[in-house]
C-alpha cells in the first residue's frame, strides 16, 4: 500500500510534480506541489515549483567539480533553470523539447540525435535518454523530500500528450521503468478534465447524457485536443474519452515568437539587424510586454527594451514599442481567427529538402485546428474546458469562446471553469492516481484509434511492383486497459530468426473497426502509417528464416500500453512485437 499518490506532469517545456497523502479525508482537495531543487547558478541550488525541461552538457572547464553538487549527489549534466539560461548563451550543448521528439515520424526515440546542433565534442543522446534524465531528476527531488517513502513504492501517474502514439507511450513507460518507477500513463487533456472533476461536488449535475466536452490544452510548445462524451452506462451517467487530436506542435511559445519577429521586422526596417542573443532577449521582453497588454486592455502600448550585453544598460540598447493593436492583431487574429465549422488547417508548401528537426505546424490558427478536429469526429461539443498558461489572459479566453460560439452555430455552449490553468494536468494526474486506488468516477479511455498491422499478400512477381500490403485491424478503437485479449480470427505466417520489417497503421477517425477487418492495399491512404519496426524475432526451435504459422493477439496492458503477440499454433512459443523497437 502506498503512502502517497504522485502525479508527474512531464511537459515539453516545464515539468511539475504534485502529490497527495493516501487515506486522507480530504482526498483530492489535499493535493500539494513538490518543490524541485535545481541549479540556479554555478554551485547554487534552489527549490522551484517547476523544472524547466532542459538539459545542458557543459564544457569540461565550464564548472568546478564543487559547482555540480546537487542535494542527492554530483550531477553529470545541468538540468532545469540554469540549463535553459546557459543554452541561450552557448550553442550546441542544450537539449530542449525532447518530448516532442518521442513521436517524431522519421527519427527513432532510441536514436542519439540530441542536441540537434551538437558540437563535435558533445556526445549526442537519444530522446528516450533525455526523458529518463528529466524523470530521474524529479525522482531524486522526491527522494530528498521524502526519504521514508521511496517513490518506487508509491502510486505514480505520468502524463503524456493525448496525441502520443503507442510507441511514444511505451518509451515514456520504459524510461520510468529504468529508474524503478512503475507508473501509469494518463493523457494530458484527460488529466486536466480529472482536475475539473476533482473540484466538482457533484459532476453529474453539470453534464447531460450524450453531451460532448471539448478539452483544449495549449501548452508552451504543443496543442492537444480531446473529446469526452457523457454516456449512459447501465442507467448511470458515465464518461468516455471518444477522440483525441493529432500531435500539433503549436503553443504559447509560438505567440511570443510571433511578437518577437514582428518587432524584429520593424527594427530591421529602421536599419537595426538583431543578433541571435538579441532575439532571445527580445522574446523575453515581448513576453512581459504581452502579459501587461493582455491584462489591461486600456494600455495603448508598452515599450520593449533589450539592453546590451555589456555593462551599460543604456548604451546600445534596442528599443521598440509593442502596441495593443499589434498584440490583438498578431495573437488574436493570428492564432484565434474566425473559422467556419469544418475548415481544414492549411498546409504551407514545403521546401523539398530540410534539416532534420521537429515537424513544426505550418498553420498557426488554433481555432482552425479545433474546427478540423471537430469536423473529423463530427461532434459539436456543448461544454469547453480550457487548459494551459496561455489562457491566463482573459482576452484570449473570451476570444476563443467567441470563435467557438461562431463556429458551432446555434449549439448552446458553456465554458467549464478550469481547476487551475497551469497546474491542472499534474493535479488531475494525482487525482487519477487516487481514483485508481480508492475509487471514484473514471473516464473510460481506451485506444484512441484503430491499429492495423501490414500483411503482405503473396502474388506472382511483377517487375517494378512490390507485393501489395493489406492492413489488418489488430486492436480496435476504445480497447481498454485490462480488457480481454483480442484474438484475430485468421492465422498468419511469421518469419522468425531473420530481420524483418513490420508496418503499422492507425485510423484517422473514431469509427470502430472489428478485429481482423482487412483494409485492402488500395484503400491504405485513408490510414496514417506509423513508424515501421525492424526486428529479428528469436527463432526458438525453428530454423532461421522459417515461416511459422501463428495467431495474433492484442491487448492493452494495465499500464495502458498496446501489446501485440504472435503465438505459435503448434507449440507454446510466442513472440512479442514491441512498439519501441523502431527504426528511423
Amino acid at each position, binding site marked *: 500500500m502506498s503512502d502517497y499518490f504522485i502525479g508527474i506532469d512531464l511537459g515539453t517545456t516545464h515539468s511539475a510534480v504534485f502529490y497527495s497523502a493516501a487515506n486522507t479525508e480530504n482526498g483530492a482537495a489535499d493535493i500539494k506541489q513538490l518543490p524541485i531543487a535545481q541549479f540556479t*547558478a554555478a554551485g*547554487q541550488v534552489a527549490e522551484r515549483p517547476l523544472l524547466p525541461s532542459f538539459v545542458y552538457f557543459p564544457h569540461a572547464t565550464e564548472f568546478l567539480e564543487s559547482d555540480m553538487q546537487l542535494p542527492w549527489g554530483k550531477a553529470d549534466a545541468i538540468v532545469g533553470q540554469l540549463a535553459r539560461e546557459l543554452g541561450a548563451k552557448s550553442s550546441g550543448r542544450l537539449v530542449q523539447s525532447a518530448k516532442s521528439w518521442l513521436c517524431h515520424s522519421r527519427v527513432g526515440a532510441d536514436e542519439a540525435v540530441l542536441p540537434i546542433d551538437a558540437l563535435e565534442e558533445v556526445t549526442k543522446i537519444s530522446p528516450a535518454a533525455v526523458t529518463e534524465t528529466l524523470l530521474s531528476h524529479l525522482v531524486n527531488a522526491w527522494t530528498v523530500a521524502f526519504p521514508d517513502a521511496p517513490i518506487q513504492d508509491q502510486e505514480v501517474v505520468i502524463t503524456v500528450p493525448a496525441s502520443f502514439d503507442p510507441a511514444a507511450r511505451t518509451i515514456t513507460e520504459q524510461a520510468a521503468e529504468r529508474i524503478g518507477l512503475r507508473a501509469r500513463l494518463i493523457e494530458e487533456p484527460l488529466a486536466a478534465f480529472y482536475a475539473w472533476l476533482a473540484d466538482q461536488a457533484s459532476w453529474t449535475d453539470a453534464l447531460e447524457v450524450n453531451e460532448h466536452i471539448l478539452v483544449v490544452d495549449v501548452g508552451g510548445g504543443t496543442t492537444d485536443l480531446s473529446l469526452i462524451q457523457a454516456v449512459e452506462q447501465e442507467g448511470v451517467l458515465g464518461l468516455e474519452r471518444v477522440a483525441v487530436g493529432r500531435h500539433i506542435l503549436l503553443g504559447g511559445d509560438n505567440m511570443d515568437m510571433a511578437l518577437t519577429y514582428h518587432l524584429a521586422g520593424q527594427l530591421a526596417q529602421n536599419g537595426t539587424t538583431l543578433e541571435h542573443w538579441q532575439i532571445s532577449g527580445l522574446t523575453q521582453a515581448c513576453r512581459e510586454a504581452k502579459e501587461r497588454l493582455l491584462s489591461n486592455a486600456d494600455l495603448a502600448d508598452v515599450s520593449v527594451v533589450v539592453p546590451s550585453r555589456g555593462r551599460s*544598460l543604456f548604451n546600445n540598447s534596442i528599443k521598440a514599442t509593442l502596441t495593443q493593436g499589434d498584440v490583438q492583431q498578431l495573437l488574436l487574429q493570428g492564432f484565434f481567427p474566425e473559422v467556419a465549422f469544418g475548415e481544414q488547417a492549411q498546409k504551407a508548401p514545403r521546401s523539398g529538402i530540410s534539416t532534420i528537426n521537429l515537424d513544426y505546424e505550418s498553420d498557426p490558427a488554433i481555432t482552425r485546428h479545433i474546427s478540423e478536429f471537430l469536423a473529423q469526429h463530427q461532434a459539436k461539443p456543448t461544454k469547453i474546458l480550457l487548459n494551459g498558461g496561455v489562457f491566463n489572459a482573459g482576452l484570449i479566453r473570451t476570444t476563443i469562446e467567441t470563435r467557438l460560439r461562431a463556429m458551432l452555430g446555434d449549439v448552446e455552449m458553456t465554458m467549464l471553469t478550469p481547476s487551475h490553468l497551469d497546474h491542472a494536468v499534474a493535479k488531475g494526474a494525482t487525482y487519477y492516481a487516487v481514483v485508481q486506488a480508492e475509487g471514484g468516477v473514471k473516464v473510460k479511455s481506451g485506444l484512441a484509434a484503430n491499429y492495423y498491422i501490414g500483411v503482405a499478400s503473396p502474388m506472382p512477381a511483377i517487375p517494378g511492383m512490390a507485393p501489395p500490403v493489406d492492413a489488418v485491424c489488430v486492436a480496435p478503437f476504445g480497447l481498454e486497459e485490462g480488457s480481454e485479449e483480442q484474438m484475430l480470427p485468421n492465422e498468419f505466417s511469421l518469419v522468425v530468426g531473420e530481420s524483418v520489417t513490420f508496418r503499422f497503421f492507425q485510423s484517422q477517425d473514431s469509427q470502430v473497426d472489428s478485429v481482423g477487418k482487412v483494409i485492402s492495399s488500395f484503400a491504405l491512404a485513408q490510414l496514417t502509417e506509423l513508424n515501421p519496426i525492424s526486428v529479428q524475432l528469436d527463432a526458438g526451435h525453428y530454423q532461421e528464416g522459417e515461416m511459422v504459422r501463428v495467431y495474433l493477439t492484442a491487448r492493452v496492458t494495465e499500464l495502458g500500453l498496446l501489446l501485440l503477440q504472435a503465438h505459435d499454433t503448434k507449440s507454446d512459443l510466442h513472440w512479442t512485437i514491441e512498439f519501441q523497437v523502431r527504426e528511423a
Partner: protein
Amino acid sequence: MSQKITSMSFIPRFFGAFGQFFKYMGSGDYAARCSAVGKGEVLAFEAEPKVITKEIEVIREVEVAAPVLDTVNEDGAHQLLQLLQHEARFIDFIQESIDGYDDADVGAAARQIHAGCAKVIKQHFTIDVVNSAPENSRIEVPADYDAKQIKLEGRVEGVGPYAGTLIHPGWKVTSTQLPKVSSTDNLTILAPAEIEV
C-alpha cells in the same frame, strides 16, 4: 557523646587502688591528670561535640562583557547582490551614471530592473508588514512595546501606553529561502566576466 564510662565493682577497685598509689607517686603528669578528673573535668570522648556556625558574607565581582558591534555574515550579502545582478542587472544599473540619460530612458530601464528585483525578492523572501493597520490610522502602543518592532517618533515622553498615528507599517521577513551553495569561496564574484568564443 561517643563513649560511656561504666563503673567498676569493689574487688578490682580494692586491688587497683594499690597500683594507682604507686602510679600516682611515680608520675607527676599522671597525678596532675588524676587531680583534674577529681575536680570534675570530663574526658574528651565523653564530651558532647559543639557545632560552631558562623555566617560569612562573600562578595564576588563578576565581569560582564560590554556589547560590542559585530559584522553580520558577508556571504549572505554577496549572494543577494549576485541574485540582484543576475535577475535585474542591479549592479550594472547602480555602477552606471544616469546623469546623461533622459527620464524616458531611465524609466524604461527602471521597469526592467523593478521586475527583476521584484522576482528576486518574491522568490527568496516572504515579506509582510509589521503592523497591518492602514497608514494614518490611530494606534495604541502598550508601555512595554518591543522597540525593535515599533519606533516611536515625535514628542516621546512619559511611561505609556502611547497613542499615535501609523506613519509606516514597517516590513519584516517571515521566511527566507536563499539558494544553497556548495562552496562559499568566491561569493565575492558577483558576476563572472563573459567572453564569447
